C-alpha cells in the first residue's frame, strides 16, 4: 500500500467515494475548484494549532504550458513556481533579488527498460554494452538541463536517499562509471549483434528528449532505432505487453522506501517490471526485506537487491533529476526537502512579507 486516504465515513456512505467532497486534516480547506483553471484553499480556522496557518488563502493555478507559467511568475502574478531546471537561470537573471530559486534532490529517475524476454536484450552482454555506451553526463546535460545526479541505483542516492547503494559500489559495476564505446562495440560483436541492427524504441511522448538521447547512443554504437512516442495509455500498454526493445521511462516512486520502489520496478512481480527481468534471489530478498524490522539488516538486503539488478542490467539507471523551485522573495519560511514536487506543498507555517 503506497497511499492511505483518510476520509469521512458519512461522505463515503453518501457518495460512495471520497473524491467529490474531500475531507482532510490540514490547515486549509477546499473553497473552490474550477476544473482546468484553479483550486482555491481557504484557511481552516479550527486548525489544531491555533495560530496557524498564517495565510488566509492559497490559489493553485493549473497551467499546462510551462512557458506561460514562467511568464506569469516573472510578471509576479504567481508567488511560487515549480519550474523546469533550465528556467532557474532565467528567473534569477530577470527577477534578481525578488525571487529565490533553489533545487532539491528528487526520487525521479530515468530508466532504460530493456526487453530481456526476447533478443537481443535477453543477452546480458548486449544490455551491458548499452550501459557502457550511454554517457550519464550527456544524459544529465540533455535531459536534465545540466542538473541532476549522474550516478544512482534503484534506490535514490544518498545522502537524501537513505537506502542507497554506496556510490563506490555502483561505480565499480561496469557501465556505471566511465563510458567506453570501443568496449561496448566489442561486447556487441561478441554477442553477434551486427552493425545496423534495428531496435524498437518505444516511450511516452513526454519523454521525447530521453528517447532522442537513446537513439543517439545507439547511433554511436552503429545500431539503428527510431523512437515511437506514444501517449500515456498506449505507452503503458506497450510496456506491459513487451512490444519494444528499449523503453526509456521516467519513474517517480512516491516514497524512498524499498517496498514502494522495488515493488514498482525491481522484483519479478513488480507492476512495472517492463524489462521482464526474473531473478530468484532478488525475489526472495524482496519478500524477505519487506518483513524485516531491523533497519540495518533490511538495508543489507536492499543493497544486495540493488547491486544484483544493476550488475545484471535489469534496467539501466541513467540518473536522478532534481526539482527546481522558485518563489518570490516576499514568501517567507518556505523550505523544500527531498522527494518530489508533490511533497513540497505544505504551506502551514509560511507567510507573506508585505
Amino acid at each position: 500500500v503506497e497511499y492511505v486516504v483518510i476520509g469521512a465515513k458519512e461522505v463515503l456512505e453518501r457518495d460512495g467515494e471520497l473524491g467529490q467532497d474531500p475531507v482532510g486534516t490540514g490547515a486549509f480547506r477546499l473553497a473552490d475548484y474550477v476544473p482546468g483553471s484553479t483550486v482555491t484553499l481557504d484557511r481552516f480556522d479550527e486548525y489544531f494549532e491555533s495560530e496557524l496557518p498564517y495565510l488566509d488563502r492559497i490559489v493553485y493555478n493549473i497551467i499546462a504550458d510551462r512557458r506561460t507559467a514562467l511568464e506569469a511568475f516573472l510578471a509576479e502574478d504567481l508567488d511560487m513556481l515549480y519550474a523546469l531546471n533550465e528556467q532557474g537561470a532565467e528567473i534569477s537573471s530577470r527577477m534578481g533579488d525578488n525571487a529565490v530559486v533553489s533545487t532539491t534532490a528528487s526520487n525521479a529517475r530515468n530508466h532504460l527498460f530493456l526487453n530481456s524476454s526476447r533478443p537481443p536484450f535477453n543477452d546480458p552482454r548486449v544490455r551491458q554494452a548499452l550501459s557502457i555506451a550511454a554517457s550519464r553526463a550527456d544524459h544529465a546535460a540533455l535531459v536534465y538541463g545540466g542538473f541532476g545526479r549522474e550516478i544512482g541505483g534503484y534506490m535514490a542516492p544518498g545522502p537524501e536517499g537513505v537506502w542507497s547503494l554506496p556510490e563506490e559500489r555502483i561505480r565499480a559495476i561496469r557501465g556505471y562509471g566511465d563510458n567506453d564505446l570501443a568496449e561496448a562495440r566489442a561486447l556487441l560483436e561478441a554477442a553477434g549483434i551486427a552493425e545496423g541492427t534495428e531496435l524498437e524504441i518505444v516511450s511516452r511522448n513526454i519523454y521525447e528528449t530521453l528517447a532522442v538521447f537513446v537513439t543517439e547512443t545507439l547511433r554511436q554504437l552503429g545500431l539503428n532505432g527510431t523512437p515511437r512516442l506514444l501517449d500515456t495509455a498506449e505507452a503503458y500498454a506497450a510496456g506491459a505487453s513487451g512490444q519494444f526493445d528499449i523503453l526509456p521511462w521516467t519513474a517517480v516512486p512516491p516514497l524512498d522506501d524499498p517496498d514502494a520502489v522495488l515493488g514498482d520496478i525491481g522484483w519479478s512481480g513488480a507492476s512495472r517490471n517492463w524489462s521482464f527481468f526474473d531473478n530468484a534471489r532478488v525475489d526472495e530478498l524482496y519478500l524477505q526485506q519487506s518483513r524485516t524490522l531491523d533497519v540495518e539488516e533490511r538495508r543489507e538486503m536492499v543493497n544486495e537487491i540493488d547491486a544484483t539488478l544493476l550488475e545484471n542490467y535489469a534496467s539501466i539507471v541513467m540518473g536522478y533529476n532534481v526539482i527546481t523551485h522558485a518563489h518570490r522573495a516576499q514568501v517567507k519560511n518556505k523550505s523544500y526537502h527531498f522527494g518530489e514536487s508533490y511533497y513540497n506543498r505544505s504551506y502551514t507555517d509560511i507567510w507573506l512579507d508585505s
Partner: protein
Amino acid sequence: MTAYIIRRLLLAIPTVLGTTLIIFTIMRVMPGDVVDTIIGDEVVATEAQKDRIREDLGLSDPLPVQYLTWLSGVVTLDFGDSLWTRRPILDDVARRLVPTLQIAVGALIVSLLVAIPAGAVSAIRQGSIVDYAVRGFAIAGLAIPNFWIATMALLLSNLYFGWIPPIAYRDFWTDPSQNMQQLLGPMLILGYALAAPVARMTRSAVLEVLREDYIRTARAKGLRQSNVLFRHGLKNALLPIITISATQVGFLISGSVIMETIFVVPGLGKFVVDSIHGRDYPVVQLLVTFMAVGYVFINLLTDLSYAWLDPRIRYS
C-alpha cells in the same frame, strides 16, 4: 424550404449515429487502458484490483452492451459520468463550452471584420501597394504558427509592459473585465489565422465578380463605386467566403486547443485532448457527438444562406 430542412435533419440522424459508432470503436481499439492511466506512475495495483476498477467503471461488459447503454443514455439526455472525475460529464462540458464558444465567435468576428474589407480593398486596388500589403498579411497569417504568435505575445507583453493576461479564468458574468482580458488574445490570434484564408478568398471572389457583365452594367448606369462594390459585387462574392468560413469552424476547435493551453483557458478544446490522452471514453464520445451535431447544423445553415444570398438558388 421546410421540407428541405426536415429532410436534411432526418439525413443527419444516420450521420450522427455513424459518428458515434466510429468514435466508440476507435476509442476501444486504440491501444492503452484507461485503468492504467488512472492508476498512473505511482500506485502499484494487481490485475485483480485493476479488474475491479474496470468493473466499477462499467468497462467489463461486452462492447455492444457498452455502446447501447451509452447511446440510450445520450438519447435520454443522461450523458453519464467521467471515468476520471466521476462527475457528470455535462457539467464539465457546459462549463468548458462557454469560453471555447467565446473564443470561436470572437475569432470569427475578428476574422470577418478584418478579412472581408481587406480582401475587397485588395481586389479593387489590384497590383497596388495596398494589394501587396494585404497579400503579405494573409500569407504571414497562413505561414506563422499560432503557438509562436501566442508565445511571443506573452513574452513581449511581459518584457515591455510587465503584464500578461490573467491566468485564472473567470466567466463573463462574474468578472467581464478579467474574462475579456484573458480571452481577447486567443480571439485576436485565432481571428488573424482565420482571416488569412478568408481575405485571400475574398480577394479572388471579388476580382472574379468585378469582371462580370452585371458589374459593367451597374457602372455603365453611373452607380457610385461603393454601390457597385457593396450592393452588386460583394454580395455575390459572399458565397465562397461563407463556405470557407463555415469549414473553418473545425479549425477554431482544433486551433483553440493551443490557445487554451497557452492562455490557460479551461475550454473544450483542451478538454477533448486531455480526455483522449486519458482514454476517458464517455467524455470523448459525447464531445465528438456534439461536434458532429454542430457540423451538421453549421452545414445546414451554410446551405440555407446560399438561397438567401443568391435568389436563383432554390431548395425543394
